[in-house]
């Protein structure tokens, strides 16, 4: 069976920061087909660019184009936008989101799904997305469930769930990943903000958070 990796993330750029190198790894080593699902267009982002290239109303259109450009650079084969609004995911019924995601998963039949680890991903939309993906996969027949790789981003994640069991050093694809990150032009300030935060948390290599893509394989028995 062809390997199909499906990225499910709430905001444009989450997929690039989390998994741009992993996508290339799957494409190069497993000839994988890759789809990317974005729940929102990051409508409520605070970064308009410096100097501003967007406003509150044009931001979603600009970020959609940026996302499409980044996905092209990453080699993603298919883009699916689900049409939710930024910052509102945690207020949707989890079952509504999960049912919607289940439909998407059952239609496209990925063999691996990559998303955020629920509860350890800082932004409420990140946690809500991870939670809904876990719920969606729970609804599937065990034999049909894709492998679920989750990304946790709080500094203390390892204290809660141990070390990540999947670690990709994506050095061979680092330049591609940086190019994909740069495609999110309106969000350029975020790269500095994240790097500053990682150094504050004790990182010695300012690029480590870009170079190492780490995931926790989610077991359905895990309590969220």
């Amino acid at each position, binding site marked *: 069976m062809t390997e199909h990796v499906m990225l499910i993330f709430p905001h444009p750029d989450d997929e690039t920061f989390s998994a741009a190198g992993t996508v290339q790894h799957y494409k190069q080593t497993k000839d994988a087909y890759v789809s990317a699902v974005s729940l929102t267009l990051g409508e409520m982002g*605070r970064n*308009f660019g410096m100097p501003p290239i967007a406003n*509150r109303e*044009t931001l979603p259109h600009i970020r959609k184009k940026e996302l499409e450009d980044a996905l092209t650079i990453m080699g993603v084969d298919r883009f699916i936008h689900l049409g939710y609004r930024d910052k509102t995911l945690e207020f949707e019924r989890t079952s509504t989101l999960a049912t919607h995601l289940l439909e998407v998963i059952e239609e496209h039949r990925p063999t691996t799904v990559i998303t955020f680890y629920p509860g350890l991903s*800082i*932004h409420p*939309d990140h946690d809500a997305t991870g939670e809904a993906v876990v719920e969606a996969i729970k609804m599937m027949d065990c034999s049909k469930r894709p492998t679920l790789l989750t990304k946790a981003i709080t500094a203390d994640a390892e204290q809660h769930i141990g070390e990540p069991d999947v670690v990709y050093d994506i050095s061979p694809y680092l330049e591609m990943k940086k190019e994909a990150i740069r495609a999110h032009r309106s969000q350029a*300030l975020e790269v500095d*903000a994240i790097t500053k*935060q990682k150094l504050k948390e004790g990182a010695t290599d300012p690029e480590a958070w870009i170079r190492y893509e780490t995931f926790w394989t989610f077991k359905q028995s895990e309590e969220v």
Partner: protein
Amino acid sequence: MIEINKDQLQESLSQYFNHEIYVHFEMTNGAYAAYRHGKAASGYVRNAKAKMMEGKVTGESPFRVGLKTSDGWLYADGLTHIDQTFNEAILLYGFDDDGKMQIALQISTTPFE
């Protein structure tokens, strides 16, 4: 997006006097604030409807805008930039030292998307 010109903004606002307006009002220190530096404090109202009676721009950049409506007030402080390229709407913003938007006041005679 350009820096606010006080007189021009006053002129633009006055064109909305005695008109029904839709308001997008937002203040935020960011979704990551609780994680990166203390506590998050943010909120937004999208497409609140009001009848604008009159209003003023005051201060020297950053500016304050106070709009008297038929039922109350709209107030915003910390506004530095305006984007008038978007339809007929008035889009006003203020940014923090890192260049991140921290306050938005948008008014339009038609609902925002």
